[in-house]
C-alpha cells in the first residue's frame, strides 16, 4: 500500500521511507552527522525529485540531530558555547553560499563544480580520518600513549579575541571557530548537505576539542544548520513535502536513539575509522559516476515539474 505525497506529486512505499529514515537516523546517532550526504542521494535514487530530496534530507537531519543532541546533553557531551559560535559562522556561511550558488548557476558552472568539489572533499576528509584513526588504533594496540596531548601554541591561541570555552577547557580566539562554521556553511549551501562530516575533522584537528565533546558539539551545529537549510530551501524552492518528512523523521528519531547506544559502546577511534571508510565509499561511488559511462545518458525534469 503506497502513500501519495501531495507536494512531490507521487506515491511512495511508507515502509521503505520509514526504513530509510531509521538507517540514516542511526548513522546520525553514531557519528554525529546529519546524514544528509547519505539521505539526499538515496532519495534521488528512489526517484524522488531533486528539490524534494534536498529539503527532505535537511529536514530529517534536523530531527535526528535534535534527538541525538538531547542524548548528548544528558551525558554532558556538548560544548554549547563552542557549538553556538560555530553555528553563527555557519548560518552566515549558508546565506553567502546560497548567493554564490545562484551566481554559479547563472553562468552554468554549478553542476560540474559541485560534483568535482564533492568528490575531492569527501575523498580528502575520508582518507585523512581513516588514516588518523588507523594510526591511533595501532598505537593503542601497541600499548602506547595517545599521540598529541594538549596543543598550547597554534594559530587558535595566537589570534586576538580570545574566549574561554570552559566545557572543552580551551582558551582560544573566536576567529577559527567562526571561520570554520562559515566555511562549512558555504560548502553545505553549495553541496546541499548539513556539513557534519566536514565539521567533525575540523573540530578534532584544528580546534583540538576533547574527543568526548566532538560528536555532541557537531550534532548541535548540524541541528542549527539543518533547521536553517530546511527553512531557506523549503520557503524558496517549495520542495518540502510534510508527508515525506513525517515518514522519514518517524524512522530517523528512533534510529538516532539506537545509534547513540551503539556509539557509546564503541571507542572514538573505532567510530572515526568506520565513519572515514563510509565517507571514502561515498566519494568512490561519486568518482565512479564521473569516470564511467553513465547507465542513463538522459535525464529529464521531474514529471510534474511543479517544483
Amino acid at each position, binding site marked *: 500500500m503506497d502513500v501519495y505525497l501531495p507536494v512531490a506529486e507521487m506515491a511512495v512505499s511508507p515502509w521503505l521511507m520509514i526504513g530509510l529514515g531509521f538507517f540514516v537516523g542511526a548513522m546520525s546517532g553514531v557519528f554525529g552527522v546529519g546524514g544528509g550526504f547519505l539521505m539526499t542521494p538515496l532519495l534521488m535514487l528512489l526517484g524522488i525529485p531533486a528539490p524534494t530530496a534536498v529539503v527532505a534530507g535537511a529536514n530529517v537531519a534536523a530531527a535526528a540531530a535534535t534527538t541525538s543532541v538531547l542524548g548528548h546533553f544528558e551525558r554532558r557531551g556538548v560544548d554549547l558555547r563552542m557549538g553556538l559560535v560555530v553555528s553563527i559562522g555557519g548560518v552566515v556561511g549558508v546565506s553567502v553560499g546560497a548567493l554564490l550558488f545562484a551566481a554559479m548557476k547563472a553562468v552554468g558552472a554549478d553542476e560540474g563544480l559541485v560534483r568535482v568539489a564533492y568528490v575531492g572533499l569527501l575523498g580528502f576528509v575520508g582518507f585523512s580520518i581513516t588514516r588518523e584513526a588507523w594510526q591511533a588504533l595501532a598505537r593503542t594496540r601497541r600499548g602506547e600513549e595517545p599521540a598529541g596531548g594538549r596543543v598550547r601554541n597554534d594559530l587558535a591561541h595566537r589570534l586576538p579575541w580570545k574566549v574561554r570555552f570552559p566545557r572543552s577547557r580551551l582558551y582560544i580566539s573566536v576567529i577559527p571557530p567562526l571561520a570554520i562554521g562559515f566555511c562549512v556553511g558555504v560548502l553545505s549551501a553549495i553541496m546541499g548537505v548539513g556539513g557534519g562530516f566536514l565539521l567533525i575533522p575540523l573540530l578534532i584537528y584544528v580546534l583540538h576539542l576533547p574527543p568526548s565533546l566532538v560528536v555532541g558539539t557537531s550534532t548541535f551545529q548540524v541541528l542549527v544548520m539543518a533547521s536553517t537549510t530546511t527553512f531557506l530551501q523549503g520557503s524558496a524552492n517549495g520542495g518540502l513535502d510534510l508527508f515525506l*518528512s513525517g515518514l522519514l523523521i518517524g524512522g530517523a528519531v528512533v534510529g538516532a536513539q539506537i545509534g547513540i547506544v551503539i556509539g557509546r559502546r564503541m571507542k572514538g577511534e573505532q567510530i572515526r575509522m568506520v565513519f572515514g571508510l563510509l565517507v571514502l565509499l561515498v566519494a568512490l561511488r561519486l568518482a565512479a559516476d564521473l569516470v564511467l559511462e553513465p547507465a542513463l545518458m538522459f535525464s529529464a525534469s521531474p514529471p510534474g515539474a511543479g517544483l
Partner: protein
Amino acid sequence: MTGLFRIILAVLACALAWVGAPARAQNRGRSAAGIDEAVLVTSSFNGARVTIFGTAPTSPSDLDVVVLVRGPDRPAWIGERQRFFGLWLGQKRLRFDAAPTYFGVASAKPLGQVAAPDTLALYGLTPESQLAVQAGDTGMEPEERDRLMREYARLRAREGLYVADAAGVQRLPGGLFRADLQMPDTTAPGLYTAKVMVFRNGRQLDSTLMTLVVSKIGLERVLYRFARNSPALHALLGVALALGAGFVASRVLRRVSVT
C-alpha cells in the same frame, strides 16, 4: 513506484461521445461532448484508469476510433550527459516552455496503420508534436533537437506518463466503443482534455472534445495549497515537526530505557 499492492481506482471518468454519421457530412457531423468527471487524488492515490465510452457508426467497417487524453502543460527539460576532459560533468539541455504532463493515445490498431506520420503530427497524436521548444533553444541543429525531443518522449514513456496503447479501444456491439488509458501516480493534477477522433483511410472525419479534472482532495489538497500559498509558514512547520519529533522521541525512548 509500482507495487504488487497497487490499487487501481476503477472507472473514474465516463464520457459519452456521439460522433455524427461521417458518410453524409464529413466534418459537419453532429457531435456533442459528454459528461465531465473527475479523478480524485487522495492519500491512497496510486494512478488511475480512465475509461471513455462513446458511439461511432458501424458502417463503413473500416473506421478507426482514436482517443487522446492529454494532461496540463508545464515547463520541462531533457538533458544529455556530456563528457569534459574525460569526466562526465555537464549536460546538454533542451528546454520546453510547455510539454504535456500526461499524453495517452488509445486506438484499436497501431497508429502507423491509422494515418501517415505527418497527419498524426498535424492532429497532435505524437508527443513530439506537442513539445514547445523554448525560444533560447530553437537555435540548436534540427536533427539534434528532434533527437532530444524523441528521447524526452521515450523517458516519459518509461515513466508511464506518455502512453500509446494500440489495443486501448474496443468496439462493443451496437456502435459503442470503449477506450481505456492508464495514468501513473506521478500524473499531474489539473484540467485534462480527452479528444475522440474518427479516421477513415488516413483522414480525420470527425472529432469530439471533452474535459476531465484530476484534482487533489481532502488533506492532500489542504497541504498542497498551504505549501503553495505560504511557503515560509509551511517551511517553519517542517522545522517545528523535526524539532518536536526529535524531542518527543528522545523523551519517550529515555523513559522506556529507564523502566
